């Protein structure tokens, strides 16, 4: 009987506290963009929810979770590299543009956040036992075998850990999404207590079938990808202000030894590209010159075919680093056009892949 007073105290205080925080401190719904719709899990998945502190795509791709190996194995061409590739190119459109009558090309976007390298993209192919395909790799990043944060961390996980890590991110997103309409979130900072919406992280959704980003959502700015972002920055202008004109032509580009070895081990045909961006660092110009110096006219042992994407007209949603949804289509078209103009052997013989049983 005595514990009745426990439930009385519990329910009274819980109701009072919830009403107080919900009614008197919540951000008014009119002052915030609507929360995104929950993904249709048969079509797309939350690949990153920044409030969970980690991204799910690394684990899903690397460990072949949720049967992602099936669409991966169907693909002929992989887009590998960092989030510049993730946001800057569309695998679905590239596949369509490269297809010819009687020869369908399927592309898959394996670009990953966390400044991931092309090397990790090849590691994903190796782990999923995919070989004999083509990869379009981002040439602008470090080009080393792997970057030292998210990729290696994901590689240290086993399958159970990888599932746990992904489900942990999804559970956090789902609970934040569910409580967003009724509760605020209090943040204690050095300058006082701030009230923000409950769903407080940036969300990225990707499509299972192609790996393309289908949604980018920000708690303050709302849906910014592939739709219209609140702000747009012209990449060419922003990079020019930092001394970079993005006038790199196609040709051959030197590629690091480890990346070439990884590609050779997978009998994967490597083609390189740059997605124009405006790096907010003082060394940007120096970095660009170094990349420029890598371009060669004729093929050598350590060079690979390079397809340039012009910066003119490309827009970014975050000040110059990641392209908007509209610019993604434009950049993808330019990449496809580059392949038609240059003798880069991009599309492997599909029949041969399956005959060899890869």
């Amino acid at each position, binding site marked *: 009987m005595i514990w009745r007073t426990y439930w009385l105290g519990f329910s009274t205080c819980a109701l009072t506290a919830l009403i107080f925080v919900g009614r008197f401190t919540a951000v008014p719904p009119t002052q915030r963009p609507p929360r995104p719709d929950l993904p249709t899990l048969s079509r797309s998945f939350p690949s990153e929810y920044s409030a969970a502190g980690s991204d799910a795509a690394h684990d899903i791709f690397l460990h072949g979770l949720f049967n992602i190996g099936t669409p991966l194995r169907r693909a002929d061409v992989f887009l590998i590299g960092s989030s510049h590739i993730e946001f800057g190119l569309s695998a679905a459109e590239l596949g369509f543009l490269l297809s010819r009558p009687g020869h369908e090309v399927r592309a898959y976007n394996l670009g990953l956040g966390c400044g991931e390298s092309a090397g990790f993209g090849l590691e994903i192919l190796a782990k999923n036992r995919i070989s004999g395909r083509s990869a379009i790799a981002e040439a602008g990043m470090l080009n080393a075998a792997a970057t030292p944060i998210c990729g290696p961390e994901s590689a240290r996980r086993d399958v159970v*850990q990888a599932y746990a890590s992904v489900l942990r991110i999804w559970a956090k997103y789902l609970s934040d999404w569910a409580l967003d309409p009724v509760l605020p979130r209090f943040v204690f900072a050095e300058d006082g207590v701030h009230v923000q919406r409950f769903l407080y992280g940036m969300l990225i959704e990707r499509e299972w079938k192609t790996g393309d980003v289908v949604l980018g959502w920000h708690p303050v700015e709302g849906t910014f990808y592939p739709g219209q972002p609140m702000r747009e920055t012209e990449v060419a202008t922003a990079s020019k202000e930092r001394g970079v004109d993005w006038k790199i032509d196609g040709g051959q580009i030197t590629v690091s030894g480890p990346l070439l070895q990884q590609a050779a081990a997978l009998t994967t045909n490597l083609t390189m590209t740059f997605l124009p961006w405006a790096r907010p660092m003082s060394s940007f110009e120096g970095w660009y010159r170094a990349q420029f110096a890598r371009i060669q006219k004729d093929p050598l042992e350590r060079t690979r075919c390079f397809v340039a994407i012009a910066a003119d007209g490309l827009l970014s949603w975050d000040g110059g680093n990641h392209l908007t949804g509209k610019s993604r289509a434009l950049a993808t078209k330019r990449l496809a056009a580059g392949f038609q103009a240059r003798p880069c052997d991009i599309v492997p013989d599909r029949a041969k892949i399956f005959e060899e049983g890869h």
Partner: protein
Amino acid sequence: MGAAAAEGGRFRVTYVDTLFLALFLPFAAILRCAIIPVRLREWVIIAASLIFLASWGHVSLLVFLGVIAVNFAATIGMERVGERASRYLLAATIAGDFLALGYFKYFNFFVDSFNGVARTTLVHQDLALPLAISFYTFHLVSYLIDLQGRRVRRAGVREYLFYVTYFPHLVAGPIVRAWQFFPQIGERRGIQSDLPLGLYQVASGIFLKSIVADNIAQLIDPIWDGTATFVPSGVDHLAVAALYYCQIYADFAGYSLIAIGMSRLLGYRLPPNFRQPMFASSLQDFWRRWNVTLSRWLRDYLYRPLGGNRAGRWRTGVNIMATMLLGGLWHGAGWTFVIWGAMHGAGIVSERILGLNRRRGVVRAGWFLATQLWVTFAWIFFRAPDLHRALTFISAMADRSPSGFVIHPAIRLGAGFGLGALVHQAYERGIVRLPRRWIPGALGATTALAGVADLVILAPSKVFIYFKF
């Protein structure tokens, strides 16, 4: 490679994760309400415990299964062979347990120490510390010794697995003895207070861990790691040491409360692990209040077998020092942990010699203050990544320049969270003094307020400190 990051990176499922709670709460509710045989229910909990362990990596799971298989076989062997052979078997199994612990936890530490002394160049092994190995080793060893001493009976497979795998205490304690736990196995207990008290403990444990400890950690970790965006003053350093005391209390007491509360929700009792250590009036008193189950384990299986306090003053001092040094080393493979243990050992020996722990009045008040300052000072060695960093930190505390007295806003904010650790201890001390009929209502209100705070206050994601041990 750091042990914490070695197996699977930073982001792993812990008791405060949405995913864990979303699975645990319905799991506990089903087990409470569903009419299923007790034995089946316990097998389900065993399976859940192993799945939880597997989520931290297959190495942890395989090492754990290997060690418990050997120990279980030893318990059968000890019963079947004669008294003398049983003792040998006991010694061999305990040696094996500590060898496994030593290999995974201390191998690289010994390599470093040996290289330093002998000027050799032995290389590190790339070892990931299996989750919970320090804690389950203590569980296994205490059971073997109690079995040999006929204080407990030999357990069957289910009882044994349930005792050692039980997930609320598996990872970081409380270290529960077989005699405390075995009578609960195979029983269906319907105690009315388990649900409300379990909820109170889980909600307040999450508050301590997620809101208090993790927010303090977010603010002071950069100072310990030397990555702060500002230059901390001398007073900042003093405050950071005190805040770490609050952080580690909130982290570990929070974990213990969640573990004890989860266990209550499942219908099993675990012993309390913290009794308001910031109110300890002496170091001896501190160790009766801090990580109580570990202190008792060290007392019963190390200090007393060494002779305890029965062999004269000097021998007692040596026994205390040995116990505290090994207790320090148990926490981590590093000289800073040894120094931390030595500081506590030296403090306890000193207060025994001077009789300070038995005084009353002003001396007692003064010793209370000295005790808390000594404990705070010792935490510097416990927290600092290495000895050099600890000494640098201590010298920075002595900064007496005018700028040395400025407190940075981040530290002031941290002090606000630190208050949460103090308030929690004062609350637990005070609530038992309320009239009996008021206590449930107060606990209900606290559960609700802590639960709402857990929901709406932003908590940075950090792994429990004691999961590393």
